């Protein structure tokens, strides 16, 4: 445990840390200083080295060179459990809970409280409950984690780290999966922890949140620290230009000037299984349609059923005024429909297969004769599409899991663009992706719409809805409560339609 020191002293000092992976130096001679009791925001594009640096601090990775000083004592950690004993805790972006165990079992995993030689379950349950209450959730510690919604799991994850009573707590993108209200709750916890004298390092891509919560912010770029300043010094524009050297206004491409309502290219109608409600929409040529609303209102079900993955019954779709039948993904791909899935690692990328195999997967059948793959042709098209999307890679035969988050997302895009879609459904295409890649994806979306592809975008990022979409449909309890166009797409309108009382609206209709 760290002994108490005066607040002016540096609790944590990382100096000259270098870490390289095959083919890339992820962290280049980084210095990083943290005072006791501060919330330290850490931002940077994907692959800037934030996560690597934090993993080094938590002992998950070992640096090639450099020093870690905690309370002026040099420390080297061979693994996380050594770092944990020294008072460092890390809350990961991907949750590390075991779904088939109870909350209490998860919280005290590996740090079992014992009475004599045996595990003291009563004590563990009691303490779990206390910790959970401290962060404002009231849960039965005997409940299985699999029964909990995502946001609550995040709280259990935090409780798990707090159970180790750490002095320095690292939050690696904890808000990526949380809604606005849940983020508020999390921030309250962070502030409470700060009051108790804990030091917090907070990593996020959502810059507004970082600005809101942090005392000090460090910006990383290409494995180096660009700047460390008090949070008051920054605003969103300043942060972005430090991260990428671009201005905020340049992020979104300009929207379509005129959309002729006559020319419908795609229409959908069906009945949502969950809510038993009929939903229908249509897209005009050149239009980017956004689907918004609070999370979990049926948007994902609706959009996945366009691709033939359940969700809706009695679906009817037309593409260029011709009826199409889609019962499964195979038919969807044949009908030229692509779906960028929400969960990149679970549904998007074959992690252990090569980049080439990944990108070619959806369209193998289009480049074959008599069952034989035309390999030269395949390599050509894969090379073309990946250079068009500027995927950073060493070779097409490298395994996909060696790519960084932003590049993986581009890989998914490449795979689905190669299928030559007429309709493309994108679920959270910029989730966990850096600003630079986001900008590229926005430009791509606009370019597709211009070419006459029907683009349907689901995102929980309101700025994105406002910035990129020509029209936004807000979903609330399984049906559309608003159809916003152009100037009407404002933060206020979106929010109002998202939270409006569903029964009231139904009454009006």
């Amino acid at each position: 445990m760290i002994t108490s020191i005066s607040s002016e002293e540096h609790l944590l000092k990382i100096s000259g840390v270098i870490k390289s992976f095959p083919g890339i130096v992820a962290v280049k001679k980084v210095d990083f200083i943290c005072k006791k009791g501060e919330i330290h925001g850490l931002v940077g594009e994907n692959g800037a080295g934030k996560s690597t640096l934090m993993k080094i601090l938590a002992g998950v990775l070992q640096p090639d060179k450099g020093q870690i000083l905690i309370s002026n004592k040099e420390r080297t950690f061979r693994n996380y459990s050594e770092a944990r004993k020294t008072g460092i805790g890390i809350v990961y972006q991907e949750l590390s809970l075991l779904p088939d165990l109870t909350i209490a079992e998860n919280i005290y995993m590996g740090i079992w409280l014992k009475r004599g030689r045996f595990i003291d379950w009563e004590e563990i349950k009691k303490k779990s409950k206390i910790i959970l209450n401290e962060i404002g959730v009231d849960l039965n510690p005997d409940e299985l984690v699999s029964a909990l919604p995502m946001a609550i799991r995040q709280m259990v994850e935090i409780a798990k780290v707090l159970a180790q009573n750490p002095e320095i707590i690292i939050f690696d993108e904890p808000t990526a999966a949380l809604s606005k209200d849940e983020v508020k709750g999390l921030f309250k916890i962070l502030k409470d922890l700060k009051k108790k004298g804990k030091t917090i390092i907070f990593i996020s891509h959502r810059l507004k949140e970082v600005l809101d919560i942090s005392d000090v912010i460090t910006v990383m770029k290409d494995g180096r620290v660009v700047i460390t300043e008090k949070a008051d010094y920054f605003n969103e524009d300043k942060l972005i230009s430090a991260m990428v050297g671009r201005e905020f206004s340049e992020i979104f491409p300009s929207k379509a000037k005129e959309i002729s309502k006559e020319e419908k290219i795609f229409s959908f109608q069906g009945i949502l299984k969950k809510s038993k409600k009929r939903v229908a929409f249509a897209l005009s040529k050149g239009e980017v349609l956004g689907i918004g609303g609070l999370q979990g209102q049926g948007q994902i079900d609706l959009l996945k059923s366009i691709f033939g993955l359940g969700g809706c019954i009695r679906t009817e779709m037309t593409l260029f005024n011709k009826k199409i039948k889609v019962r499964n993904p195979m038919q969807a791909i044949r009908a030229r429909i692509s779906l960028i899935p929400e969960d990149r690692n679970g549904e998007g990328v074959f992690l252990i297969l090569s980049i080439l195999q990944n990108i070619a997967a959806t369209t193998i059948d289009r480049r074959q004769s008599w069952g034989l793959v035309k390999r030269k042709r395949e390599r050509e098209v894969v090379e073309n599409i990946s250079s068009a999307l500027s995927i950073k890679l060493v070779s097409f035969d490298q395994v996909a899991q060696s790519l960084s988050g932003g590049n993986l997302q581009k890989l998914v895009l490449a795979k689905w663009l190669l299928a030559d879609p007429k309709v493309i459904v994108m679920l959270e295409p910029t989730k966990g992706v850096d600003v630079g890649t986001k900008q590229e994806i926005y430009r791509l979306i606009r370019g597709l719409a211009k070419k006459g592809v029907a683009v349907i975008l689901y995102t929980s990022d309101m700025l994105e809805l406002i910035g990129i979409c020509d029209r936004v449909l807000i979903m609330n309890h399984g049906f559309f409560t608003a159809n916003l166009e152009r100037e009407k797409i404002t933060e206020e309108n979106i929010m109002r339609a998202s939270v409006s009382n569903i029964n009231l609206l139904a009454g009006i209709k």
Partner: protein
Amino acid sequence: MKEKQQNIRLYIPIYLIVITIYIVAGIIEPTFFTWNNNVNLFTRITPLIFAGLAQTFVILIGGIDLSIGAIISITNVIAASMPYIDTPINIILWLFVPLLAGLTIGLINGLIISKGGFPPLIVTLATGAIWLGVTLYIMPIPGGSISLSVSRAVTGKLFKVIPSPLLIFVIAIIICHFILRKTEFGRSIYALGGNETIAYESGIPCSKVKIWVYGISGLLGACAGIFLSAWMFSADPLIGEPYILNSIAVAVIAGTSLSGGKGGVVGIIGGTYVFYLINNILNLLAISSFYQFIAKGLILILALIFTSSGVNLNIKELLRGYVSSKKEDC
């Protein structure tokens, strides 16, 4: 081109091990290097090569085939139960009836696994038991017979020079390699093994691929059974049993990952050789049988350490990372 280099690099360790064991064997017993001994060895490894190929296909999609032993036994018994007077029609029967039986059994496995969504481990354990029972019903004790000239043709030499078994298994491996690497079907196998959900959502006909992979496994098992009938000159209803686990071991030593999606058939000869050379050496050294089991187990674990996907690659990647960090200098 790069892809090829990478693949070759993957198979270097297994063949280095084989060469080492081979040389050790030769030093212990000089007759080991004689052509005759080697021709003998070709014959002996052929059934296991077929079984290993069968298992590789199944493991590549993340499955497993425990019925391979029963498939070998039943096709072996069927082959030796065919009329054995030398007429072309009889030779065709001897070849195609067991092949058809193997294919059918495999396809049934595939159907149950893909349509029922059951775990392949249990399904093939169950169907294996059923077919073993059927085999014992057909032929309770070793027996049967096959045509002498067929047996000579299969286990002898082509044009009095090339040993037929060598020719048979090399052709089989080349065909399998071709299917895996160059065909749409092969691509689908790797995709399915890589991640079934993504494969489905990428429009790959998962159940069709699965059914045919088990079908191929049955077909290759039948090849082993037929070859055994020609070699043994008769059939044994229990002949397939040892091949169940040995085929899995061979596939894994040859570099195929048990979780699927990674590997191939190029290392199969090496994997099989490791198996038989160990036996051979231990016999030559006149080591008693229980020590033989112990030694065999230990050598297999060693072989795994050096060959199975992951271990050696990590070492290489570490080295490469070290070099590149020096180059870039921070």
